[in-house]
């Protein structure tokens, strides 16, 4: 009695400690990026960095619709102004002031270093004459008032040329000074958030603020609506959707399971007791994941708890073996060898997730492994002590044993089903593996369509095609960029790409800037060239003194680098186009409107430019996921082999391996074939779920093949198995109803797997081991 109290007290203390850790020390993250792997190649790392923090992820596309064009213009202006005032955004673009005053001053001051036209004979008398004549034309044109003020300092027009280059990237149409869709039905805005697109919590707060700002616009007609799209919006929507679904799915599943358990045992006590291993497992899982990774992801928590639903099997096995003659500890000792083997093999299965190298799966794996072990230990040492001594369970139906005997007559069906499934898979038109990640995206079709539409109207790249230029220093990358500029221009002329955004078009390399400086003439030479050029032209005397000063100071001006643009909108642009990563520099060149991807790939290879490569991000991310999937499959296969060895040792017989392994392997094949027949291709997440099925299958098979004495015992084991698999099917069946492709995939795989494992395990239940056989 004392010992019994001591054990329970120890458990209670451990739980209290665990709960204290959970509530105070555990940090729950919600940033999806935390679950993404690091990537193994430089390209993959770049891609993942872009996804995490790159500009592509931080852009939000906004549209105002539901009013007259003039009302939209008014709202867009007001909205833009207020958003800028919040300081939450690096850039708020709505067509007004493409470049801020600060940016323009910097460009004007640095025009002779930045202009591509500066060369040795750019300031000869002839060239100057040509420039001056053009300025006269400018003064005569309707645009005179716009360019007039730059003429005294910049008679060769370098500034306007640079400006045209910087602002030439905008694609949206304008109406009364702001961006509008072509039909004037929507005013368009782009904002760039400081927070990363995958930071769902920060994004949610920002989007909330944006909505509030919009609602509070003064004099806003009530009919105006705000539309929002972009990776951040998707991240928030996804998170909300997953949270909402996980909440109702887990509520529905746990209610069903509790009701079912009550129906099975007709005892509230047992139902409550079954929560002991589960809750212990969850706490252990959370503490373990947080201890190892430093945080636990919300999604790990949600999926992990669902996954740990299988530990309910352990108390169910115990309850099913309770009978009037022996106490709970005795019953536990009787089934422990079988259960131990089941736990060990399941843990081995889930360890594959730990080794797959994918953070999301590793967290899930660790959660499951820690939870399973803790739940099993609690079931073994604590739970039996909690069962009331005089407890008499409900008598199990006796018809189960003969039914099983009938079922095992059809044992030949198991290998037959496996063979049939194999052929079905081999001959199927549906590809076995899912290579397009997008199909698993929880983003709705309508959401994707809106995003496409807004991107089209704004002329924003949809960030799929990139040119990547790498080098050991920023200078190297800029020089390489300058080298491929002509070829990119050629691609555009051929129509292979509609546009590109290359850092070198904005920021020349140090080498180019110095070459330009050296080609600038001395003041006296320039003055005399200008004197010759001015002959006969009606410019006011002394007008071009600022020009002479500017060229003179440009000769000694320090060259520009990224730092010089810090704090300006241009600086941000440069920061996103030129990134440093682990000591290497990379220029990211977004390509717009790629007509023919394979041909583009070939064209870039044909340049033979060192450090330059074309990357199709979609292709690359699919490749990345496929690589992780293959690795998981390989690890799981080795895990299976290890399981077989452990089983052979544990069962002390190779012969028993057949009825234990065969049902599980057949179930895997049949479930795969079934999913395939339903038109679903397998993904990384199916693979992860297969590990669960392996664990379940082994557990069932081990209990089916447990050597037992009496029919009563046999009936209890079988009843326990039925209850186990039924709860699993309930939990995952509910999950299969989810609208989120990922949850649906996991749910249907596990539910069908559990059913097949039970059926096949029953069919192949070892007759020779059963005394009734």
């Amino acid at each position, binding site marked *: 009695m004392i010992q019994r109290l001591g054990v329970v007290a120890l458990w209670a203390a451990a739980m209290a400690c665990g709960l204290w850790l959970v509530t105070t020390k555990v940090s729950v993250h919600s940033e999806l990026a935390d679950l993404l792997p690091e990537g193994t190649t430089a390209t993959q790392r770049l891609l993942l960095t872009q996804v995490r923090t790159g500009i592509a992820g931080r852009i939000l596309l906004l549209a105002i619709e539901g009013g007259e064009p003039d009302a939209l213009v008014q709202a867009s202006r007001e909205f833009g102004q207020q958003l800028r005032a919040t300081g939450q955004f690096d850039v708020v673009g709505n067509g007004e002031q493409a470049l801020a005053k600060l940016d323009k001053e910097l460009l004007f001051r640095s025009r002779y270093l930045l202009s591509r036209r500066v060369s040795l004979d750019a300031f000869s008398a002839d060239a100057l004459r040509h420039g001056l004549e053009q300025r006269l*034309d400018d003064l005569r044109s*309707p645009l005179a008032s*716009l360019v007039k003020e730059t003429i005294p300092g910049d008679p060769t027009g370098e500034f306007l040329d640079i400006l045209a280059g910087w602002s030439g990237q905008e694609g949206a149409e304008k109406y009364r*000074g702001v961006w509008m869709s072509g039909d004037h039905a929507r005013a368009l805005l782009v904002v760039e958030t400081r927070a990363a697109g995958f930071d769902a919590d920060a994004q949610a707060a920002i989007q909330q603020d944006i909505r509030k700002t919009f609602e509070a616009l003064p004099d806003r007609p009530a009919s105006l609506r705000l539309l929002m799209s972009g990776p951040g919006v998707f991240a928030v929507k996804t998170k909300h959707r997953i949270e909402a679904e996980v909440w109702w799915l887990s509520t529905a599943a746990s209610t069903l399971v509790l009701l079912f358990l009550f129906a099975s045992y007709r005892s509230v006590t047992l139902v409550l007791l079954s929560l002991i291993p589960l809750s212990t497992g969850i706490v252990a899982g959370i503490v373990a994941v947080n201890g190892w990774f430093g945080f636990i992801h919300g999604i790990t928590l949600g999926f992990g708890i669902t996954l740990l639903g299988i530990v309910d099997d352990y108390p169910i096995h115990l309850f099913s073996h309770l009978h009037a003659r022996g106490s709970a500890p005795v019953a536990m000792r009787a089934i422990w060898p079988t259960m131990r083997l089941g736990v060990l093999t399941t843990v081995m299965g889930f360890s594959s997730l730990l080794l797959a190298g994918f953070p999301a799966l590793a967290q899930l794996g660790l959660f499951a492994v820690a939870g399973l072990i803790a739940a099993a230990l609690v079931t073994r040492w604590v739970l039996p002590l909690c069962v009331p001594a005089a407890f008499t369970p409900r008598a199990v139906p006796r018809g189960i044993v003969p039914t099983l005997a009938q079922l095992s007559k059809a044992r030949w069906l198991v290998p037959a089903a496996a063979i049939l499934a194999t052929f079905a898979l081999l001959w199927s038109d549906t590809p076995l593996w899912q290579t397009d990640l997008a199909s698993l995206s929880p983003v709705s079709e309508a959401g994707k369509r809106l995003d496409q539409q807004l991107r089209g109207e704004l002329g924003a790249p949809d960030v799929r095609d990139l040119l990547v230029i790498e080098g050991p220093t920023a200078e190297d990358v800029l020089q390489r960029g300058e080298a491929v500029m002509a070829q990119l221009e050629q691609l555009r002329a051929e129509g292979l790409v509609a546009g590109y955004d290359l850092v070198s078009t904005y920021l020349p390399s140090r080498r180019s800037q110095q070459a330009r400086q050296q080609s600038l003439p001395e003041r006296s030479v320039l003055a005399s060239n200008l004197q010759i050029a001015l002959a006969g032209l009606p*410019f*006011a005397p002394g007008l071009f003194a600022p020009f002479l000063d500017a060229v003179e100071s440009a000769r000694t001006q320090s060259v520009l680098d990224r730092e010089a643009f810090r704090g300006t909108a241009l600086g941000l642009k440069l920061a996103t186009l030129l990134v440093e990563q682990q000591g290497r520099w990379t220029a990211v060149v977004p390509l717009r409107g790629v007509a023919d991807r394979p041909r583009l790939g070939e064209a870039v290879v044909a340049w033979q430019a060192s450090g330059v490569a074309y990357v199709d991000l979609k292709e690359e991310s699919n490749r990345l996921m496929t690589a992780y999937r293959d690795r998981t499959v390989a690890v799981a296969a080795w895990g299976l082999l290890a399981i077989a060895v452990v089983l052979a040792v544990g069962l002390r017989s190779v012969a028993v391996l057949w009825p234990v392994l065969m049902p599980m392997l057949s179930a895997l094949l049949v479930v795969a074939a079934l999913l395939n027949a339903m038109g679903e291709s397998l993904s990384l997440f199916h693979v992860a779920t297969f590990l669960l099925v392996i664990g379940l299958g082994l557990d069932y098979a081990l209990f089916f093949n447990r050597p037992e004495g009496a029919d009563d015992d046999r009936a209890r084991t079988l009843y326990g198995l039925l209850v186990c698999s039924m709860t699993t099917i309930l939990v995952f069946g509910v999950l299969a109803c989810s609208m989120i492709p990922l949850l649906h995939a996991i749910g249907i795989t596990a539910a069908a797997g559990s059913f097949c494992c039970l059926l096949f395990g029953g069919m192949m239940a070892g007759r020779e081991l059963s005394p009734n056989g």
Partner: protein
Amino acid sequence: MIFGRPLRKALTGVLFVLLLDSATLAAVDMPSAPWTVEALVALLKEQREPSMAFEEATYSSLLTEPLKVRGQLRFTPPATMEKAITDPFRERYVIEGERVLFESERKKIKRTISLEDYPALRSFVAAFRASFTGDAAQLQKVYETTLDGTRRQWTLLLRPREKTGQSMVDYILFTGSEGRVATIAIRSPDGDRSVMTLLPGASPGAVR
């Protein structure tokens, strides 16, 4: 009698002439509505010619003498305007809706820009378009309008209402007689200005 009969007769004659004159003037002015911006633009629309030759002089503080160009101004309803400079170089601005085609032989440029990006040009276009389509409401929406003089000799002063317009254009001054515009002067806030003189009919040298 200081005033003899002959003098009285003469005075009567002068009076008669004066009366007659005012009667003829009244005969022209009376039937139409009071001389308003609405009346003016209606008349401009009515008497609009498809094409007009122009001479334009630009006065700027940057220059020692005004720059002159000659060319053609065309208006094709509903909204296409063209300013074609033919001398001393060839340059064309075709404005269709919100789009401006800019074509310069000397600069070897042919590109389309959005009217939105050039507020000065926009105000200018709005003034023309509204005037020639008889849309007084639109004109008064963009500009503060002041009409002076008589139908025979009028001036129309336009001052932009919007700030963007004001930063580029101080005022636009149309002068004319009846439904014909004689000059268009545009003054920018820094004091520089251009004066365009319109000549009726297409000049023989003007080619598209």
